[in-house]
C-alpha cells in the first residue's frame, strides 16, 4: 500500500466532510477569480481607453506641463528632435498636439470642452481617433423607425434602453444589442438602414472643421454639418475664438472625455490659440507598451530630449486615475481577503475534527511502527489533495465565465449605465483573461493549506502515543 493510495482512501472515508471542505475551497477560489477578473479587466479597459484614446503611452512635454497643464507651458516643436526620437527602435511616431480648454456653444447650449489639435494623418500612429468615428447611432428617430420593423421580442422590448448609443462598426451594433448570429443576417441591413450616421474624419490641410465626442454631440444637439463656436484663452492670455463645422462624431470610451471632446487640425488649433509652431505635448506612439520596455524607452527618449523637455509615461500623466484604481483594488483585495479568511477557518475546522477523530488511529500507527514523519506526510497529502481538488475545480469552473466575460463584456444600460458615466466610467465591465492573478489566487489557497498542514504535522510530532491510544 503506497502512501498516496492510503491518503486517497483516507480522503474519502468521510466523504461529506471532504466534499464540503473541497467545496468551500472551490467557491472561494471561483468567486475570487471571477471577482478579480472583473476588477482587473475593468482597470485594464480603463487604462487602455485612456492610453489609446487620449494620453498615449509616452508624451513629450514642457517640464512644467504635468503640474500646470496650460498654454503657458508649451514648447516649440523641433523637427530634428522629432526625427531623432522616431529613430528609437520602440517608437512608431511622434505626433505633436495642442491641448487646451474652451467653451463650445451650439444654438442656445454651451459646454466647457477639451480642445485637441492633431495632425490627422499622423495621429493614427499614436492614438486611435480615426477609428472611433461614429457610423451608426441609435437616435430617437432611429429607434422609432426600428420599432416599426419586425424585431425579435426581447430586442423590441429593450431597444429604448440603448437610446443615444453610438457605434463605429456593424459588429459592435450586433454585439451590444445582443442579436444572435441567426438573426443578425436579417437584422443587420435593417439596422444599417435606420441607424446610419453621417460624418467623417479630418483630412490633412483641412481648415474650419472639428470632430466632437458623441456625448458632447448629444448635449449640444450638434450633428455633422452643424456649426459650433469655440471661445477661450490663447497663448499668453490672447483671446481664442472660432467658428467650426462639425465634420464627424467620435465615440470615446471614457465618458468624461466623450462628453467634452473637440478635435481639430493642429494648424487650426495653433491659429485658434495663437501658438504657431508650438505644441503642449507630443504623443509618442510605441510598439511595445509593456512596463519594462516602456521604462527603458522613456529613459532613452528622456536622454535624447534633454533637460528642456520631459518624457512622461502614462502612469505619471494619469496619477489620479491610478490612485482611484489602486484604492478600488485595495477594497477588492480586502473583500477577497475576508473570503479567504472564512475559508481558512473552514479548512482549519476540518483539520481539527480530523485530528481529533483519528487520534487513536494515529497512536496505533506509530505504536506498530509507522514513523511520525511518514504519518505526517500522509496526513499532509490528504489535506493537500482535498484543497487541490477544490482549487482545480474552482479554476476550471471560472474559465468559461472569464473567457465569455472577456469576449462579451457585461454592458450596463439605462440608469445603471448613466450612473457609471456620471462617475466618468464607460458602463462596460470586461473580464481579464487568465493571467498572473490566477497564480496569486492559487498561491493564497496553497498558503492556507500549508498552514493547515503545518498545524497537523506539528500535532502529529507532538503526539504522545500512549495518550493517543487512550483517546
Amino acid at each position: 500500500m503506497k502512501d498516496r493510495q492510503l491518503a486517497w482512501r483516507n480522503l474519502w472515508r468521510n466523504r461529506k466532510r471532504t466534499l464540503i471542505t473541497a467545496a468551500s475551497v472551490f467557491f472561494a477560489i471561483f468567486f475570487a477569480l471571477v471577482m478579480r477578473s472583473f476588477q482587473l479587466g475593468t482597470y485594464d479597459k480603463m487604462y487602455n481607453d485612456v492610453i489609446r484614446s487620449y494620453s498615449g503611452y509616452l508624451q513629450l512635454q514642457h517640464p512644467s506641463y504635468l503640474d500646470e497643464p496650460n498654454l503657458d507651458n508649451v514648447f516649440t516643436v523641433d523637427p530634428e528632435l522629432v526625427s531623432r526620437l522616431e529613430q528609437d527602435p520602440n517608437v512608431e511616431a511622434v505626433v505633436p498636439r495642442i491641448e487646451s480648454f474652451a467653451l463650445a456653444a451650439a444654438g442656445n447650449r454651451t459646454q466647457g470642452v477639451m480642445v485637441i489639435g492633431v495632425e490627422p494623418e499622423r495621429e493614427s500612429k499614436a492614438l486611435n481617433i480615426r477609428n472611433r468615428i461614429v457610423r451608426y447611432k441609435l437616435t430617437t428617430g432611429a429607434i422609432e423607425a426600428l420599432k416599426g420593423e419586425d424585431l425579435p421580442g426581447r430586442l423590441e422590448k429593450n431597444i429604448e434602453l440603448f437610446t443615444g448609443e453610438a457605434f463605429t462598426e456593424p459588429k459592435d451594433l450586433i454585439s451590444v444589442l445582443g442579436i444572435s448570429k441567426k438573426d443578425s443576417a436579417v437584422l443587420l441591413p435593417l439596422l444599417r438602414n435606420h441607424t446610419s450616421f453621417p460624418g467623417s474624419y479630418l483630412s490633412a490641410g483641412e481648415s474650419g472643421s472639428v470632430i466632437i465626442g458623441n456625448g458632447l454631440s448629444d448635449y449640444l444637439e450638434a450633428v455633422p454639418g452643424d456649426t459650433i463656436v469655440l471661445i477661450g484663452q490663447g497663448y499668453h492670455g490672447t483671446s481664442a475664438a472660432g467658428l467650426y463645422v462639425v465634420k464627424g462624431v467620435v465615440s470615446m470610451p471614457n465618458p468624461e472625455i466623450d462628453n467634452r471632446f473637440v478635435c481639430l487640425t493642429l494648424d487650426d488649433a495653433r491659429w485658434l490659440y495663437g501658438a504657431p509652431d508650438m505644441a503642449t505635448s507630443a504623443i509618442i506612439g510605441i510598439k511595445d507598451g509593456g512596463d519594462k520596455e516602456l521604462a527603458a524607452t522613456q529613459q532613452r527618449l528622456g536622454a535624447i530630449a534633454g533637460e528642456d523637455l520631459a518624457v512622461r509615461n502614462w502612469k505619471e500623466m494619469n496619477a489620479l486615475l491610478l490612485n482611484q484604481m489602486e484604492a478600488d483594488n485595495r477594497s477588492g483585495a480586502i473583500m477577497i481577503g475576508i473570503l479567504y479568511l472564512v475559508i481558512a477557518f473552514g479548512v482549519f475546522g476540518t483539520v481539527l475534527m480530523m485530528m481529533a477523530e483519528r487520534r487513536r488511529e494515529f497512536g496505533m500507527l506509530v505504536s506498530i511502527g509507522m514513523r511520525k514523519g511518514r504519518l505526517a506526510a500522509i496526513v499532509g497529502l490528504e489535506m493537500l489533495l482535498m484543497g487541490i481538488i477544490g482549487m482545480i475545480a474552482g479554476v476550471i469552473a471560472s474559465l468559461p465565465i472569464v473567457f465569455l466575460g472577456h469576449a462579451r463584456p457585461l454592458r450596463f444600460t439605462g440608469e445603471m449605465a448613466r450612473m457609471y458615466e456620471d462617475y466618468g466610467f464607460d458602463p462596460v465591465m470586461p473580464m481579464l483573461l487568465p493571467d498572473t492573478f490566477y497564480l496569486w489566487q492559487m498561491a493564497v489557497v496553497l498558503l492556507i493549506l500549508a498552514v493547515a498542514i503545518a498545524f497537523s504535522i506539528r500535532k502529529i510530532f507532538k503526539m504522545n502515543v500512549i495518550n493517543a491510544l487512550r483517546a
Partner: protein
Amino acid sequence: MKVVEINEVEKTYHDTEVEVRAVNGVTLSFEKGDFAVIVGPSGSGKTTLLNLIGGLDQPTAGEIIVAGHRLSELKPSELIDFRMEHVGFVFQSYNLIPVLTAAENVGFIMSLQKWPKEKRMARTGELLEAVGLADRHNSRPSQLSGGQQQRVAVARALAPRPEFILADEPTANLDSKSAETLLDIMEKLNREEEMTFIFSTHDVRVMKRARRVITLEDGKVVSDERTNHTV
C-alpha cells in the same frame, strides 16, 4: 531463551498533583514461547507494564532489555523501528485501519518493512488462513464482526514475525464464542510458531488458558505462577 528482561523497573506519573507510581520495582523475564497473562485490579499497572515492555513508554527507573536491546538507550525514532521489528501489538479495540481491507491490514507492517510483494502476499494468505479468515481477504473492518476484526489484528501483529505479541485486554470487547475462537487461534500460533504472547487481562477465560499468571497490585508483582495448563 529470554525474550524480555525487566529489572527493577519503576514508572511514576506526575500528571496530577498526586504522584502516581504505576509500576513499582518490577523484575520479570519472559521466555520464548511463553503464553503469559498479567492480571490485577484496575490501576494495578498492567497496561503501563505492557507499554514499557513494548517501548511505548520509558521507565522512570530500572532497565528493560528486549531481544538484546536496552530500550532506555534507543532514541524515539529507533524505538519506533524497534517496535516494528520486534513487537506485535493487539489492542482491546482492534484498531484496524478502516480504509484497508483485511489482507491490506495484515500486510501493512510488512509493507512498512518493505517486504517484497509476493512474500508479503504469501504471508498474508497464510496468516488469514491461520486465523480462519481466508475468505475475508477483501473485507473492510466495517464489514467484519468484532471477533473477526480482532483475529485480523492478531494476524497483523504476527505478520512480520516479531519476538513477541503484547495483547492488551484482547477479549474485552468480544462475546464468549469469539473470545474462545481467538484464544484457540493464539494458542495454536503459540504452539506452531513458538510465538510468545504476553496478555494483560481481567478475563477469566484468558487466565484459564495461560501457562503463566503474573499478578500485579499497586504496581508490584505479588505473584508469578506457572499453571498446569498445557496447550
